[in-house]
């Protein structure tokens, strides 16, 4: 019997700057926001890295799509960031 795979699911808003993960779900968000995020390029299975945050609790600056030729960078409002669930991979900074 194989051991259950331990998933570490965290909201984008809980990640530290420099952290990476794979988008696991946008379930918490309302319909239109979800459709819009997916259209822009933030969808399940995309790898995502938190590059920085704007000062005074402003938007999150993320890069999605680790693969070459598929990179996109976006600014995301904190209220959406808390609805984007990621499977965390590695944290570069504490």
């Amino acid at each position: 019997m194989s051991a259950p795979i331990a998933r570490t699911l965290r909201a984008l808003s809980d990640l530290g700057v420099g952290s990476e993960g794979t988008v696991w779900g946008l379930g918490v968000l309302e319909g239109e926001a979800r459709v819009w995020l997916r259209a822009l390029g933030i969808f399940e299975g995309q790898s995502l890295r938190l590059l920085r945050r704007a000062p005074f609790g402003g938007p999150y600056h993320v890069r999605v799509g680790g693969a070459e030729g598929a990179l996109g960078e976006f600014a995301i409002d904190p209220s959406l960031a808390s609805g984007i669930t990621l499977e965390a991979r590695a944290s570069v900074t504490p």
Partner: protein
Amino acid sequence: MSAAAVGTVALVGRPNAGKSSLFNRLTGADAKVGNFPGVTVDVLEAEVTDARGRTWAVVDLPGLYTLGVSASGDTDEGVARQWLDRAVQDRRPVALLQVLDGTQLGLGLRLTQELLREPFPLAVVVTQEDLLRRDGATVDTARLEEALGVPVRAVSARDPGSRAAVLGLLEGSLVPSAERVERPERDWDPERLARQCYRREGAGAASLARRTERLDRVLLHPVAGPVLFTGLMVSLFAAVFLVADPASAALEAGVGRLSRLVSRAVTDPTLASFLVDGVLGGAGTVLAFLPQIVILTVALELMDASGYLSRGVFLVDRLLRAAGLGGRSFVPLLTAHACAVPAIQATRILRDGRERLRTLLVLPLMTCSARIPTYALLLAAFFSHRGVWFRGAAFVGLYLAGACAGLLASLVLRRTVARGRSLPLVVEMPAYRSPEPRVVWRVTTRAAVGFLRDVGTSILAVSVVLWALLTIPAPWGAPPRAEAAPIERSVAASVGRALEPVTRYAGFDWRINVGLLGAFGAREVMVGTLGVIYGIEGAEEDPAPLATRLRDARTPDGRPLHGPATALSLMAFFVLACQCMSTVAALRRETRGWRWPLFVVGYTYALASGAAVLVFQVASRVLR
């Protein structure tokens, strides 16, 4: 679309995919705003002739991420959606040409997936080939063609040769069709296909991404970022002031020379006065604001094309959100500091209807350049003894007063008439690229022409009507004195006098009232009107004699007619009142009705009158 055209090719693509660049390359400089029924937003259209002499209408649809979101007709996505639906309805022969950024193949192919479901012939142009090659990469177009089942070409839109490549694609395989196209659904995954079609050959190693990362480390640094951004905005305003001023003066001097020629050549005094004060006066007023519009448009376009504009949005989003707006409102708010009319059009980038409405309602409070001549005149007339620093600070204060009034109004509106929270921000931060001069030039000329057309005609009309009101003697009432100048007997003066019992609480006499009546149509005419009333020609060119006359004007019993208190009260009025019919017309166009434009006029005039009375009553007691 002309009768000879074989059909229409619509360019579709994500924002920043290089669509404008390719459109420019394809069509040269002679695009015009297409007139499409049902589409309120400017959609550029131009005709292109291919090697076989056939004409194609090429349409540049707004950039879009998806066709699937129920966007309203006011946003870019909505406009494109409406246009496509309309083409199906009218059975127009249309083909789609997707412009796909080769550096974002995976993301662009998601849109391709949607476009394949549309009932039009489709071809794909992969752009940014030059950037890819610099990165040592290419896109396997043959493989893409095979997977998608539609023609694919890779080009660099900046390369002149791309025109022939795209025209060849049009000629060879893209036949616009009035028939509905149905394709069998193919099963492919955009990301996987992108990985398969992306070939890395050299050792360029993602230089584009690296350069962007390096620049962002500075430009979005927690401390340096906001400081640099603020510095850039301050320099932009300094440029609008310092560079635009000599250019405006030169344009006005030119109109002044023309006026003198006309007054010498035309012997009939009434006709000469009509041409000089009415027509040329109005034309000069319009031209004086053109340099500022041009500078601000160039600056905004450079920021947009380079990718910095979305960094600005990122930096100011938090601040504007506190006022019930959002980062994207920053663009129209900035534009409004030159002129509210293009700013009202710029609100189309706001996806959220409530936020867009709030932005539209507060834009007229931003200090547009048409207020500057009045501020300059009043400061020169009543505060010249205070020195240049005082006047500089006063100007900054007036700008800030407008901006703060706008943010406060937005806060109030959010809780009252335009309730609702703004949609959360999601905005793409494109890789930094050097802007293309051809595209900047095209955008700027369009903005300049649009300004002259939209604002120019209304200023000219106001100027001519005002001339008539200042010239025609009032048929009612007796003139105050028999020896009064003709202007004191005019219709405008008698209306101004009738208002005096109310406006004296704000310190305004009939002369200022007449100026304000004209300024109701276009605040630009204020200085010129006061010049006419005080019998000073060319007040717009050189306000100094008018400033002296304003300061030295006396009542019959020898007291000064106006003082600093009146000046402050008049400035407060100008900060707040929406004295601009072009703005009202633009608001009506964008909100499709009279409700909101009338609301704006009502609330800004109420605020302005209240503030003017308050300022005058306080200042006339303090500044004794």
